[in-house]
């Protein structure tokens, strides 16, 4: 049914990610722990200049509130800047294709979308975005949002090691994340993409005259650099509207392969960063095993139901499986790997039409966004995982007869209180606008009616709340309601969990560290990994199974191909 070699591609890509992750993870830990590295000679003077400019001293650590305030201020300023850029782009330079000024709501949605690492695109890049907006605006935000997520993870993790109530210096963290992690990796990534045939040019477009007659304009740009940070930063916004399905953004199986590795590598590395930062590298393993289990099962489900769907047997059989209408350039395993990686790492890049997938495949993708943590986006995905780990420790710790503790820190009321904020924010952010959209009829206007339209709308808000950014068309979402509601959902879905992560980190950092004893819950065990898996799946399923049943699941076997 499919080339077995393509399955090997899948295995190889995952293997490469897993081989890089321990090393990159350790390197990232060094960055956040301020350890010396080879780049010091080059970067130290630059960073010192930046700190001087920002007026911060690298040795001054912040409490979580100051850290959060700095983060919010920087994010707000950057969003405002890009917002201004977008509403005025028509009269600014570097606008080869003559994109007009964006409407205020679309600019609001777009700037928030890129700042929150969502990269949900209600605009069409080819027509509605100038090259200046793309490079100085959105690409800058793609770097900044990924860096923001990673600093949050670093600050959260520090809570487990520190005892003085501080979680680090935000300005130092964000600077070092950019100079030592994202910029070098993106440089490498862009080089590889360019090498594999992705365009890299400042030429805005090529005009050509096809044999069929007429005039065609082929938009171009620095796609390779854009691609690199799109995937490495788990951003997912495409340089072209068709995103990774576009032959210039994802020209070949090689770039497809590269993209998968770039999407997964930082989220998986962060799991190792954690182990190194808490000085117990072994603690990474149960988390990795849990995440990998979920990821591989999701990949398997997606592949199986696109290849040979038992519910569709006799209804429709295709030699190439069921991806017809979704994607036909690559093989099903390769496509599945790209799409599942993109959704589960909360990148949100798409290489196919998600609306044309089978219901189980759609459910699989939705479930990944409900989870947000297998492995999730840069930094924040790991933060979510850590919050679920804390909840698991709370329940599991009770079961061994001690008030729960994780890595020597007691898990009590403050941590649980903030952890529940993240549990609550996701369903709130998804369901409130969804109900409003459906009850007001705005949803029907945008997407139509029936289970599939419901799935499309559910997907829209889930993707925004999870800061994923993929969309399941067709939907007319460049409207006032969807732009504003979507922006609010993205803000809630991004910053409430970030606040919770920083607050938990801060509350842990002000505790003394307890020594581990034989009576404490051992988190470096298969049993704990199993418990974590159970808590993740059951808690998520508990909250989201009804809407899955209402949407994609109720289309199984209906012939809703």
């Amino acid at each position: 049914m499919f080339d077995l070699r393509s399955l090997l591609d899948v295995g190889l890509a995952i293997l490469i990610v897993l081989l890089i992750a321990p090393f990159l993870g350790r390197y990232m830990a060094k960055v956040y722990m301020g350890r010396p590295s080879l780049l010091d000679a080059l970067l130290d003077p630059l960073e010192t200049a930046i700190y001087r400019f920002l007026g911060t001293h690298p040795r001054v650590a912040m409490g979580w509130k100051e850290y959060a305030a700095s983060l919010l201020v920087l994010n707000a300023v950057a969003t405002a800047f890009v917002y201004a850029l977008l509403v005025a782009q028509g009269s600014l330079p570097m606008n080869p294709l003559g994109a007009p000024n964006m409407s205020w709501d679309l600019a609001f949605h777009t700037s928030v979308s890129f700042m929150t690492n969502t990269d949900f695109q209600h605009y069409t890049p080819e027509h509605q975005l100038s090259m200046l907006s793309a490079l100085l605006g959105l690409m800058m935000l793609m770097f900044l949002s990924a860096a923001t997520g990673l600093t949050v993870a670093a600050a959260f993790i520090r809570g487990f090691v520190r005892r003085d109530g501080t979680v680090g210096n935000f300005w130092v963290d964000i600077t070092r994340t950019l100079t030592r992690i994202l910029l070098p990796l993106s440089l490498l990534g862009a080089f590889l993409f360019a090498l594999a045939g992705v365009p890299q040019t400042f030429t805005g477009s090529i005009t050509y005259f096809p044999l069929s007659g007429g005039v065609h304009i082929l938009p171009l740009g620095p796609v390779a650099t854009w691609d690199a940070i799109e995937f490495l930063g788990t951003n997912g916004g495409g340089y072209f509207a068709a995103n990774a399905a576009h032959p210039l953004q994802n020209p070949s199986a090689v770039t497809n392969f590269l993209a998968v590795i770039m999407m997964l590598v930082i989220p998986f590395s962060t799991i190792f960063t954690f182990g190194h930062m808490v000085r117990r590298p072994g603690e990474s393993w149960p988390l990795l095993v849990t995440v990998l289990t979920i990821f591989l099962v999701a990949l398997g489900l997606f592949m199986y139901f696109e290849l040979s769907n038992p519910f569709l047997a006799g209804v429709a059989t295709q030699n190439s499986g069921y991806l017809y209408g979704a994607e036909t350039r690559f093989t099903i395993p390769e496509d599945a790997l790209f799409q599942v990686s993109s959704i589960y790492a909360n990148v949100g890049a798409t290489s196919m039409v998600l609306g044309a997938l089978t219901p189980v495949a759609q459910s699989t993708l939705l479930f990944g966004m409900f989870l947000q943590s297998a492995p999730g986006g840069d930094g924040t995905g790991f933060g979510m995982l850590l919050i679920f780990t804390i909840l698991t420790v709370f329940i599991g710790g009770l079961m061994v007869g001690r008030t729960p503790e994780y890595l020597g820190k007691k898990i009590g009321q403050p941590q649980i209180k903030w952890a529940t904020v993240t549990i609550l924010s996701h369903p709130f952010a998804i369901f409130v606008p969804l109900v409003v959209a459906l009850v007001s009829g705005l949803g029907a206007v945008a997407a139509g009616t029936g289970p599939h339209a419901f799935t499309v709308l559910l997907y829209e808000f889930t993707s925004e709340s999870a800061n994923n950014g993929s969309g399941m068309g067709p939907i007319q979402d460049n409207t006032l309601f969807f732009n504003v509601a979507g922006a609010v959902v993205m803000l809630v879905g991004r910053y409430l969990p970030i606040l919770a992560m920083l607050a938990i980190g801060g509350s842990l950092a002000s505790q003394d560290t307890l020594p581990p004893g034989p009576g404490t819950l051992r988190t470096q065990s298969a049993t704990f990994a199993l418990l974590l898996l159970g808590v993740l799946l059951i808690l998520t399923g508990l909250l989201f199974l009804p809407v899955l049943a209402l949407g994609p699941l109720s289309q199984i076997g209906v012939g809703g191909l």
Partner: protein
Amino acid sequence: MDAGTFAPAARSRLRFRRHATTRGTQVVWNALRKFWPGHAVHNSVMFVVYVLLLFILVITFFPWVFPDVDTRGFDQLYYLAVAVILFLTLLFAAFAEAIAEAQGQAQAASLREIQSTIQARKVLPNGRRLTLPSSQLRLGDVVEVRPSELIPLDGDVVKGAAQIDESMMTGESDAVVREAGGDKTSVLGGSRVLQGIIEVRVTTRPGEGFLDRMIKLVEGASRERTPNEIALTVLLAALTLALLVVIVAFDYLAISVGTVTLDLATLVALFVCLMPTTIGGLLPAIGMAGVNRVSRANVVAKSGRAVEAAGDLDVLILDKTGTITIGNRLATQFVPAPDVDPKELMEAALLASSLDETPEGRSIVRLATRRGALGERVDPEKVRLVPFTPERRISGIVLDDGREVYKGAVASIESLTGHMPLEVRQAAQEASRQGMTPLAVSSGKRVLGLVILKDVVKPGIKDRIRELKLMGIRTVMCTGDNRLTAAAIGRESGVDEVIAEAKPETKLEVINREKRYGHLVAMTGDGTNDAPALARADVGLAMNSGTSAAKEAGNMVDLDSDPTKLIEVVSIGKQLLITRGSLTTFSITNDVAKYFAILPAIFTGVAGVEFLNIMGLANPHQAILATLLFNAITIPLLIPLALRGVRFRPSSAVELLRRNIVIYGFGGLVSAFVGIKLLYIGLSLLYANPLFIHWVALGRAILGGL
């Protein structure tokens, strides 16, 4: 002599009645009171159920209030059935709490009883004696205490002198002499008079005493929620809130998607089934039952917090005397001098100790008798007792035929007899080296040999210490003894660390040291000089026999004054937390099966969701009622477990986790599938019953007539 003979009379009087009788009417009344809204609001999870019940009742009887219920397949009898099951859910949860409460009340009642049963003999101004409960003593009262009686309260000796066993209080195994006048007048409440009759003036106030406060605490313990319980409550409340959002959204979404019609009763049933009602309903009872279990072990916890802390302990500081060892040195061996018949040595030792009432003396008598010594009949009137004095360090008797038998320190016997055989001296040195106490025995001028006294480790203590080690708790033994003795006992009992030549402030130092490492420390104590350490320890278990300062400082008081009780308290604390965690897990894994029952019932006819119907529940209403009923009856089924606590066997954390995940995680999963299916079959049988059909018809007729 065994540990039990220390304070036999007092202990049996102090014991709670094992099976605290809980009055049925009290329980029912307590349970019903929980339905008062002001009460119901205390338990957030159950309060949501309460509101939902009212909601369903309103729809059942006044369906016109909700104009669209008719379009959603309103069936009055089905709504009524849902309402009844919701009511049962609430009732069961209320009963769980009420039973736990009633147990606490019963224990408070028996505490009050105890208060009035410690007897004291008060000396009246006219010289007469009046026996009265010690609770009625006042500051300044004078009581008379005779041999083998307990001194009721701390006080000063105003008349007479006595040899007093204070080992339970101070850990000092040698008896002390207290007499009127001078600076050795103070006696400790709970210590036992061995010889002599004394009159003691009470120097503590019993009326405002600690028992009164304890009673209030046992009764009130139910009201205070511990940090861990609050954290769990927050989690459960958040989960409920999130589910509320999901269910309300589900209703709106289902209407607009239009594939299914959602019955309001079904929606409520789905919500209630998914909510953590099992743990939510049992949570208050679990906490109360924990405190009750501690009291049933005859320990009064001053707060539920202390019980929880007990589960967390890392280090236990144990006194050697009274905790690890019986508290007195006992004779274990006779070593005859060269050319002396062992029989002769035993007879002499027996004779020398025949009037010695100290535990050591009595142990010599017992050992000699057991080894076959016959013993001479001694007429106490005709012999002269030579009592033990710290200066001479020997004791014995002078018989009327002029024979003198003595036992005592080797050096003292040598100076008495003028010689000491080399072999005996060597044997004595060897015994000392092993931490034992040799006593030489002489008859006239002849040295007959040695009696070896040994600090005997309590039976069973080794196992308890091994269990503690399994639980991950380190034991530190503190003793005033010299290093040799201490090390010997340490080896024998298996404790992790031995601190010898400890001074009263040593315990505090050890606690401070452990706390610096971030350990949670527990200790037992009874003396006034233990008070600072008791207060500093995370769990300070004071002995009831101890001084009031100690009882004030500790956060638990053991009414039996048995220091090994600490080990039991640790188990109870762990059990409390395990019960909470396990039932939470159970509650959550149950939900998986509930989804497989209710979702297919809601989505009847939708092929894609029907494949979830792996239990094969054909009738939707019946499936929902079976699930809701399962949800309700898990609460009463688990009440015994909540009150008794999950079985806790000391083992490593990994093992505990694995076992509890299997039992309560997978158990919750499987039991819900099986339980719901069984209840469904049960309902099927019921529905087929002609009598039931008749009743249903009648019910419909009555409801229709309303």
